[in-house]
């Protein structure tokens, strides 16, 4: 297996998109803060209740060009519609609690 890399399948058609990118921090945190086993430990990172957006991600945000408010609005609308049509997002699934705060 090779290092997870991002294969942008549209790369051939779109010169502006690189063929391979570094694994983004967001992709990583998406998995590492929401996935993986949580079994009783002496110390666990109880970040289940921390929204990614609320972390000090200002550095990330600063690197992204300002996006129009219209984009953000329609994203929320579509998100609700798409996920509702297929499945519920994992975060809302019952019976899957966040990290228990083991001591």
């Amino acid at each position, binding site marked *: *297996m090779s290092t*997870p*890399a*991002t*294969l*942008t399948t*549209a790369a051939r*058609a*779109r010169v502006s998109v690189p063929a391979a990118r570094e*694994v*983004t*921090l*967001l*992709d990583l*945190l*998406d*998995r*590492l803060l*929401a*996935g*993986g*086993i*949580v*079994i*009783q*430990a*002496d*110390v*666990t*990172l109880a*970040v289940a209740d921390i929204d*990614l*957006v609320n*972390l*000090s*991600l200002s*550095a*990330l*945000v600063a690197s*992204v060009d300002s*996006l129009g408010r*219209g*984009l*953000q609005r*329609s*994203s929320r*609308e*579509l*998100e609700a*519609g*798409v*996920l509702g*049509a*297929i499945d519920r*997002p*994992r*975060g809302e699934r019952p*019976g*899957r609690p966040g990290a*228990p705060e083991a001591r």
Partner: protein
Amino acid sequence: MALYVYGIVDPEEVAADQLSAVVSARCPLELVQAGTVAAITSPVGLDEFGEEELRERVEDLEWLEVTARGHEGVLEQVQQWATVVPMRLCTVYRTRESLCETLLRQEQFLREALTRLAGKAEWGVKIYVDSARDDGAAVEDQPSDGDLAEDDAEGPASDKPGADYMRARRRHAEQVEETALAVQEMCAEAHARLSAVAVDAELSRPQPPELSQHPGEMVLNGVYLVPDEEREGFAETVLQLQREHADDGTEFELTGPWPPYNFIGETFEVAG
């Protein structure tokens, strides 16, 4: 020293001396075996990974990134030759005894997870749509004298700006709805076709546009557990989907192989 745990492996697949070849920022990596399972660990200080300290650190993006990439890096390397059951970021045990106790208590669950995940990896597929294609913010604003002709491309501007405005607004609303429906159907179909090649599939929440670092709008953020022998078939499915949407501004993005973070099962031990 306390022990940071990256993931769980089968001790028959990972020999202690193999770990010395794994590159890690936190050294040395050590295999801690209990019963028929083993944890990949490295020593850490509670001055960094104590309960209170951790809460402060997690707000430090730089620290979080180094820690997350370190965690991922170790698992990625081991995953090249062994099945790993990944742990949540920052799982720390104060003593070796405390770790072994937990491993033994969870031995059956961990063995089942190792068996279920053997020979499979997690792959991510994101779908972005061209955010400009339903961008009609202009008609959202109250019309001012003079800009109605631009909003209403059909027919000449009438002398009833109010009616023109309402018509443009209605048409815009219909277009937005049609676009949303089409995107919804495309995502459902893509997810079904990708799931058919995988043994398990989940939907993650699309990443917020201000963080996704992508000019398009993420409409699907799927994760798929794919057998290694289906890897090419899975990638081919993504390519095929992209070919079918070559001209409509839709972009499919494949990432992986990842340790199976999203497929470790539903069993969580409740503290206490």
